[in-house]
């Protein structure tokens, strides 16, 4: 059973990251109905910025934990600015355009960001400098590191904070109102532009955080890393019911665990016919199967009349 426990732990770590990225997709989608294809790239830029800051501070003699925090903070702020800028420059002018127009813009932006990152950081893999001593804990035949613990705890804290923000604050109420009905929210005095900008800013901040987590978990970063990560996270968001924040969190965790279990067991299940390089298939297989039976995702409330 140690494989099971081990894969559950790995899946939980990965799932926490997916959930954070998925929240960024779902918040934007819930409010303006746009698949923000550039979100994966925002995550990637966050990782790269954190990496640059950490590397340049590594020799300064500051305590490692402080360096990490500073790197994280700068990455989060940079991504917030980036997210805000994206909305302002690329998406806001298209708010009343046909549905596919902003989608193509998002794709264009994703290409632009990816190539800007490539010009700045090069096309090779970048190794994250190990800042904290990795400690390995063993429980019941499975092992996990303090990095994994930090990722899961941090993600949980952030999700609790976000839930509070959305459910208890005025801004959160405005966001929920806008998601339900933009026009009525406008009539109630909600500043729609601000709410939409906020959704992008918060989503990007979460994305930057998730990017840093992936970076320190795999200790590696690449200018194309945002693509697959974004795709999986979007899958997670759809799995949970896009536009639904609790759904994104659950979908992310679920996807991470399914993927880890799938990768761990596919060899046994198919008599070694299919190996673990089919890992990426699980996310999409599960998605297709779930949507066949629940067309608006696991937790989607809407009947899906929103085309």
């Amino acid at each position, binding site marked *: 059973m140690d494989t099971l426990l081990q894969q559950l732990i790995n899946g939980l770590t990965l799932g926490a990251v997916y959930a954070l990225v998925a929240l960024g997709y779902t918040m934007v*989608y819930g409010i303006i*109905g746009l*698949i923000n294809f550039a979100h994966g790239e925002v995550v990637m830029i966050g990782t790269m910025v954190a990496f640059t800051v950490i590397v340049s501070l590594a020799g300064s003699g500051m305590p490692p934990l402080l360096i990490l925090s500073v790197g994280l903070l700068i990455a989060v702020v940079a991504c917030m600015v980036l997210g805000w800028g994206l909305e302002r420059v*690329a998406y806001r*002018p*298209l708010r*009343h*355009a*046909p*549905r*596919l*127009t*902003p*989608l*193509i*813009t998002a*794709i*264009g*932006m*994703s*290409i*632009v960001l*990816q*190539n*800007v990152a*490539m*010009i700045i950081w090069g*096309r090779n893999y970048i190794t994250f400098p190990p800042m904290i001593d990795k400690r390995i804990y063993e429980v019941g035949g499975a092992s996990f590191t303090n990095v994994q613990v930090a990722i899961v705890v941090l993600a949980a804290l952030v999700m609790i904070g976000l839930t509070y923000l959305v459910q208890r604050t005025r801004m959160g109420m405005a966001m929920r109102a806008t998601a339900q009905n933009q026009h009525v929210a406008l009539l109630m005095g909600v500043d729609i532009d601000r709410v939409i900008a906020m959704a992008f800013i918060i989503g990007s901040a979460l994305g930057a955080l998730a990017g840093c987590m992936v970076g320190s978990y795999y200790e590696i970063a690449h200018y194309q890393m945002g693509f697959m990560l974004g*795709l999986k996270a*979007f*899958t997670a968001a*759809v799995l949970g019911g*896009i536009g639904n924040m609790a759904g994104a969190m659950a979908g992310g965790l679920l996807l991470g665990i399914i993927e880890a279990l799938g990768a761990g067991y596919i060899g046994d299940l198919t008599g*070694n*016919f*299919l*190996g673990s*390089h*089919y890992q*990426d*298939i699980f*996310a*999409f*297989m599960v*998605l*297709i199967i779930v*949507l*066949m039976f629940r*067309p*608006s*995702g696991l937790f989607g409330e809407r009947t*899906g*009349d*929103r*085309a």
Partner: protein
Amino acid sequence: MSGESGRSPRGLQQWLGLLLLVGVLLAVPFVAALGGQAWVRIANFAILYVFLALGLNIVVGYAGLLDLGYVAFYAVGAYCYALLASPHFGIHLPFWVILPFGAALACLFGILLGAPTLKLRGDYLAIVTLGFGEIIRIFMNNLNAPINITNGAQGITLIDPIRIGDFSFAKTSTLFGISLSGPQKYYFLLVALAALVIVINIRLQNSRIGRAWQAIREDEVAAKACGINTRNIKLLAFAMGASFGGIAGGVFAAMQGFVSPESFSLMESITILAMVVLGGMGHIPGVILGAVLLTGLPEALRYGIEPLQKAVFGRMIIDPESLRMLVFGLALVLVMRFRPAGLWPSSLRRRELSEVTD
């Protein structure tokens, strides 16, 4: 496009326009060849993309189903051709057997994917098709063990060119006193295929099925209430688009002589979708324009950016490949910003849009 309209002056103008178009199309491969066969190949790809974009146009433009995994059908067609006409399995079937078979197989895949998922709306369908495209690509990438079917990431090489009797499309030969190179022959084949797709597209647009697609695109519930069997009609659009993708894939495999999973990435699906949207969804001339522009632009940039950088800075400062993609992405953003309905939208669509924004 009926014959009688040739009598009226307007019809005459149309025929003259058509004649001019045919003249230009005939001249293109010979003019392009002056700059080297590479340019003929670029022209070929432009037409191949016209073909693909028009196939996707049926799905996205007419029926309004957002398909982000269109390239999967293209891949099915290409691999079908590659496996049945290469030394990989030692099978060498003629193209006129494989192309219809590839189209049928792609159509089958389209139905297999579409049947369970077409009840999904809008963006849910988009992500499912996207996932399907990735699944196909991952399988192509990994089906080399334990039984080597697709030869994995290395892809399949030495694919037979299209051949009619002794007339091979790979070699230069002389026809009616004109020397034709391999790419030039493919050019004419592609033009013929593209013309066929265009005719099908035009005929579909105003047919009963075409109007049913439009009705579904505008309001599915209303369409259903009017007695349209929305499920079957949507499935038809999906299957038809998939078949075109399959044929294009077969021609691609024959033309290149080589296929690998790399050619069928999500980026490819996105590029084809961008051609449809950028040109003007649902409008045939717009889609053609979009396909030609988006194939030509990166190539033009490839030949333009390098010398430009050298001239301005004296050396290469930025990797031309990424700069090329950068400009491509910016072009998408800018076109959508200033022409949200595409570069050449149909007049009907433009009218609808301007009414909405009031």
